């Protein structure tokens, strides 16, 4: 039981991060139909940026803030310089553009930072808290509450602000949004910016636990993409459920099956879900219109 609980804790901790990355995928996908494979690299920019700014003597909160802003700038540039000019390209071409962008960002990070793994000090100590025979790291609570705050903030933003509503409208129907006078290009930029910020915050929160390096974005992108697909692409709740599910599956896979095959367990589970529900958990039944 204690072991089970321990696995749940560690599964939920990474699962929350996957959910945040999946949320970034979902935001961008809904606004633009683009799958942004550079999503994971925002996580890296958040983590690595904070590490290097902090080591340059900047106070941690300020360093984190600057790192998030840097990620947002990268997200906006990605949209403006790479996605916007290729608006009419096919989905596969768009995927390749974002993959190229991901390789480029990693390449620049390699030059700007280094090849080493880095960590951040845990925000409030690293003495494990005992819970029913299992332990939980204080940083895990930071990750969980940070994610909750982000989800809540995002939900409020989408439902209560005009800008958020414009984003939802654009996601629902781009042409109709344009017709009622929404600046669709600006909304797409907003989606990229917000998803970059979410990724960067996730990166800062999780770095004290998982460490960071210039190329950690790839795995985060894969897992986040998988989470978004398992949930059903484009469904925010699907993204959260998918992220947590993959985090838990990985933890259980590592704990009960084999730690080398934890990624395999997660992806096998994804394959099984998709065989049964070809459009993911929240994707619903598909009706082809002809």
């Amino acid at each position, binding site marked *: 039981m204690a072991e089970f609980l321990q696995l749940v804790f560690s599964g939920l901790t990474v699962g929350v991060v996957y959910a945040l990355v999946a949320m970034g995928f979902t935001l961008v996908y809904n606004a633009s139909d683009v799958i942004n494979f550079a999503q994971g690299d925002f996580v890296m920019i958040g983590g690595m940026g904070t590490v290097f700014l902090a080591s340059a003597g900047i106070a941690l909160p300020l360093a984190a803030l600057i790192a998030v802003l840097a990620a947002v700038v990268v997200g906006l540039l990605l949209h403006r310089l790479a996605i916007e000019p290729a608006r009419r390209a096919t989905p596969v071409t768009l995927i390749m553009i974002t993959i190229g962008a991901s390789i480029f960002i990693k390449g620049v990070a390699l030059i700007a930072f280094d090849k080493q793994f880095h960590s951040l000090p845990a925000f409030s100590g690293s003495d494990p808290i005992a819970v029913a025979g299992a332990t939980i790291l204080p940083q895990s609570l930071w990750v969980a509450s940070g994610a909750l705050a982000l989800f809540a903030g995002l939900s409020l933003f989408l439902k209560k602000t005009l800008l958020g509503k414009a984003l939802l409208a654009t996601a629902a129907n781009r042409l109709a949004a344009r017709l009622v006078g929404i600046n669709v290009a600006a909304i797409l930029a907003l989606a990229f910016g917000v998803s970059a910020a979410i990724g960067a915050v996730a990166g800062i929160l999780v770095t004290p636990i998982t460490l960071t390096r210039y190329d950690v974005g790839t795995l985060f992108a894969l897992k986040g993409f998988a989470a978004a697909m398992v949930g059903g692409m484009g469904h925010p709740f699907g993204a959260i459920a998918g992220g947590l599910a993959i985090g838990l599956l990985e933890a259980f896979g590592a704990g009960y099956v084999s730690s080398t095959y934890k990624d395999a367990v997660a992806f096998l589970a994804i394959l099984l879900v998709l065989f049964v529900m070809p459009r993911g958990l929240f994707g619903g039944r598909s*009706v*082809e*219109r*002809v």
Partner: protein
Amino acid sequence: MTILDVQGLGISFGGVVAVDDVSFTVAPGEVFSIIGPNGAGKTTLFNLVTGIYHADRGRVRLAGADVTGVAPHLLAGRGLVRTFQNLQIFFRMSALENVMVGNHLAERTSLLSDLFGFPSVARQNRATRRRALDLLERVGLARYADVAAGGLPYGVLKRLEIARALAANPKVLLLDEPAAGCNAVETEAIDALIGEITRAGIAVVLIEHDMKLVMRISDRVLVLAQGRRLAEGQPRTVRNDPSVIAAYLGEHGAREADRAYG
């Protein structure tokens, strides 16, 4: 004699009944039209008959055999072929190749012979090509044979779909708004083409909004409204049916139909 026999077909989407207990039969060489206001369930009915949707209720019999729930490509093999309301063209292929795909069922090659390029493949390609050219000629599109379909105008593509469907040797041909978006000349060409098809003994099931065309060429007309059968009979009878006039044709439509009869 009946070639297509549809009995009590129905389907619901999320609680909304899209097609409800619709029955009809079609004889070889007959033009059977399905009309009704937008959203009446005409295309959904086609999708049910051609196996794209699985019916919740009802049966479809083709040439006496129960084909309910049979996959679309197998139905095509049994002679049930259709065109699409929203064009389903192979845009990256030439017009000729589009029609050649229609001949797929008649082609006798295997994956291995296709891979290794056995002489039988070249022979088969020549035969298919000849047949497709004939069909393009028949629908009046021979001069577009080698043009990429993606660059052809809408009216041309409508006829290209018919040529592709004919290539599959249909017994029953379902045409979903073949004249939509066509000008008067193109509509006339389609009119003549349908006549030619039925003379060859093929049953035509037609969805069409052009009432002049429907009233002129149909042997029988089925009127759908809100997924249900409202009336069925000869064009003249249907046109004078008060419930039909009320539900669908309205003042304007009735006048137009009158003119068609002259």
